[in-house]
C-alpha cells in the first residue's frame, strides 16, 4: 500500500503479467486491481487504459469499480498510509480524543496527503479489531488500545 511509485516502471508490462496469471475473465477484475494497487500504490489512468484493452472491458467500468472499493485508490498516496477506525466501538472506547490528537499532530484533515508526501490520513470503517479499540493501522502495522498520549511516539516510528 505504501510502496513508492518508481519512475519509469513499466505499467503495460505489469498489467500484461497480471492478466496472464489471472486470466481475462471479468470475475478476475477485482483481484487484478488489488494487485496493481499493492504493486504501484494506486491505480493510475494508464493502468486502467491498459487493463481495458487486455480484458476487453470498457475503461468506464474499470474506473467505476476502482473508485467503489475502499482498499483501491485512483489517487497517489503518501509513503505511509494511516487508517483510523471511526466506527462506534472505537469511538466509544475513546477514539474521538485520539483522532483529535492525530489531526493536531499531523496538521492534516481527513483524506489528505501531507505536502512532503510522507503521510496520507484516512478514516476507515470497522477493521474487526474492536476488542482492542481504539484501533489504527499504519501501512501494515496494527495499533490497538491507542491513547492520545501515544500518538506522537507511534508517528515517530516512521521515516
Amino acid at each position, binding site marked *: 500500500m505504501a510502496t513508492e511509485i518508481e519512475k519509469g516502471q513499466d505499467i503495460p508490462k505489469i498489467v500484461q503479467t497480471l492478466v496472464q496469471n489471472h486470466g481475462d475473465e471479468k470475475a478476475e477484475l477485482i483481484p487484478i486491481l*488489488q494487485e496493481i494497487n499493492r504493486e504501484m500504490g494506486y491505480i493510475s489512468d494508464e493502468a486502467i487504459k491498459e487493463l481495458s484493452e487486455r480484458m476487453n472491458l470498457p475503461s468506464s*467500468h474499470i474506473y467505476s469499480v476502482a473508485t*467503489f472499493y*475502499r482498499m483501491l485508490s485512483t489517487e497517489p498516496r503518501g509513503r505511509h498510509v494511516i487508517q483510523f477506525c471511526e466506527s462506534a466501538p472505537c469511538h466509544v472506547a475513546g477514539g474521538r480524543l485520539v483522532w483529535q490528537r492525530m489531526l493536531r499532530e499531523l496538521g492534516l484533515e481527513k483524506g489528505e496527503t501531507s505536502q512532503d508526501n510522507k503521510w496520507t490520513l484516512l478514516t476507515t470503517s470497522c477493521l474487526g479489531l*474492536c476488542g482492542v479499540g481504539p484501533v489504527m493501522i499504519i501501512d501494515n502495522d496494527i495499533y490497538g488500545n491507542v491513547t492520545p498520549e501515544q500518538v506522537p511516539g507511534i508517528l515517530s516510528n516512521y521515516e
Partner: protein
Amino acid sequence: MKTTRSMVLVSSDPESLDRGALDVFSTLQKQITKFGLEEEIALSMITDISKHAMSPLVLVYPDAVIYGPVTTDDVPMIVEEHLYKGRVVEEKQISAYDLSGRVAWLSSRKGTMPAENRIVLKNVGLIDPENIDEYIINDGYEGLGTVLKEMTPSETIQVIKNSGLQGRGGAGFPTGLKWQFVNGAKGNKKYVICNADESEPGTFKDRLVLEGDPHAIIEAMSIGAYAVDADEGYVYIRGEYDLAISRMKKAIQQAREYNLLGENIFGTDFSFDIHIHAGAGAYICGEETALIESIEGNRGEPRPRPPYPTTAGLWQKPTLVNNVETLANIPAIIRNGAEWYKSIGTPSSPGTKVYTVLGNVNVTGLIEVPMGITLREVISIYAKGMKGGTNFKLAQTGGSSGSIIPASLQDTPMDFDSYNKAGVSLGSGALLICNEDVCVVDLAKVLLNFFRFESCGKCNPCRIGTKRAYDTLVNISEGVGTLQDLKDLQMMSDQLYELSNCGLGQTAGSPLKDILAHFRAEVEAHVKLKVCPAGVCPMSGQREYKIF
C-alpha cells in the same frame, strides 16, 4: 473467558433505596470480599423488581433464590451460609410466585447458570488451524462422511430444518428452508457461497472462526453443496482479513490433498471445490446480492429482489449464501442430530450465539452462549460488570444495523423471537455496552456517518437519506437543532425503512428511531436547552451544515 459462579442482584427501585438498599449493597460487597469470593461472584444493582412490599430484595442466581426484605444485619448470614457454604437461608427466602417480569424470568430458569457453551467456537484456540489432521482427530469431516455415505440430500435438509437453525448473519432466516429453496430451484449448475465479508462495526466473530477453525467452514460448505446439488463454492472474505485469507487458502489446499475437496469425495459421485474471493473494502458487500455482484467483477451494488439468489444468484444460477457462523453450526448438527441442537437455547431460537462484547465494561471479547441469555447476564457474568462501577445506559447490538437497547430491556431474553417482540434487533452479535458518559446524539451521529460513507449510492432514499440524517444530527450536536429536526429524523427513519432497496438503507434509520423512542428527553435537551447532558457534543452554536 473467565466466568463467575454466582450472580447477586440488589433491588434499587425508589422504595428499596428508601429502605437502605445501598447499605445492603455495600455490606454485601464487604462480606463477599471478607470471604474472598469477589472473583467468583458478580454483584450488581437491579432496577424495578415490582415487589415493593418486600424490598429491598436480594437475588442469588443461578439458584434463583430471592431474599426479602433484607437489612444490613441479614447480609453476613446470607453471604456465609448461601454464597460461601451453599445453603439457602430459608427464613429470609420469599416465594417468586407473585413476581412479574424479569424476576419471573430469572426464576423460571432456575439452575441454568449460563455457562459458555461452545459449538461454533469448539475448536477455536484449541487446535492448530493449519493442520488438517488436528481437525480430523476432533471429529472433523465426520459429518461430511455421514452425509455422503448414509443420507440423501433431502434427508440432510430435513435434519437442518428440524434443528431450527436460523441464519446468524443478522436476519435469522431458517437455514433449512433456504437449503430447500436452492435444492428445489431449477438449473444444472448451482453455487454455494460462504459470506465472510464481516464488516458490521463491532463484530469479529467470523474472523476468529476463519482463523481458528477454517476446516469447519470447508466441511459445512461441502455438506451444503451436497444437499443443494452444487459443485462449486466461493468463500468471500473481507480484504482486510489477511490472516483469515491465508489460513483459508492453506486449509483448502490441505483438503484437496486429502481428497476432501475435488472429484469423487469419500469415493462417492459427489464432487465439490472451493475458491476464495478477497473483498476490496466495502461494507455493502456483506449484503448477499452485492456480494454476488462483487464476485462477478462489478461494483458491489445490491440487486432488486426478487429474484432471490436461491433462484438466480451468481451468474444467474441458483446460489446458496450462508454466513460463517451459520455454517460453523452445520457439522455439529449432523454429528449430534437435530434433537441435540434443539435442546440448547430457547424453543423459538435453538442453539448458541457468538457475541462480541465491547465498550465500557471490564472484560471485552468474544463469548458463545445459548440463545435466550439476557444482557444483564452478559454484563454481570462475562463482562465482569461496568467499567469503574459506572451505570449501564444502553447497548448497541449487531453492529450499525442493530438496535439501541435501553437499560429497561436488559432482562429481555436475547433470541430472535423475544427481541422482535420488543421491537429491537439482535443483529450480527456485537454488543457495544455504553455507560452514562455516552451521548445518544453523538452515538447516532457516528452510526449515521458510517451509513453515509458505506451507502453504495445506487438508490436515492439511502444515499440522500443517510446524508440528510447525518447533517441534521450534526446540527443538533452543535446546538443549532430545532424541534422540527426531531420530526424530520423520525420521518427520515420511516422513509429509509420503507423506500430503500436493500438492508443497509432499511436499517440505517433504526438508530434515529431508537434514540427518539428511548432517549427523547436527552435529544430534546440538545434542542430546547442547548445542553448535551453527557457533555460530549461540541454545542458550539455554529451551524455546520445548511439544510434547505
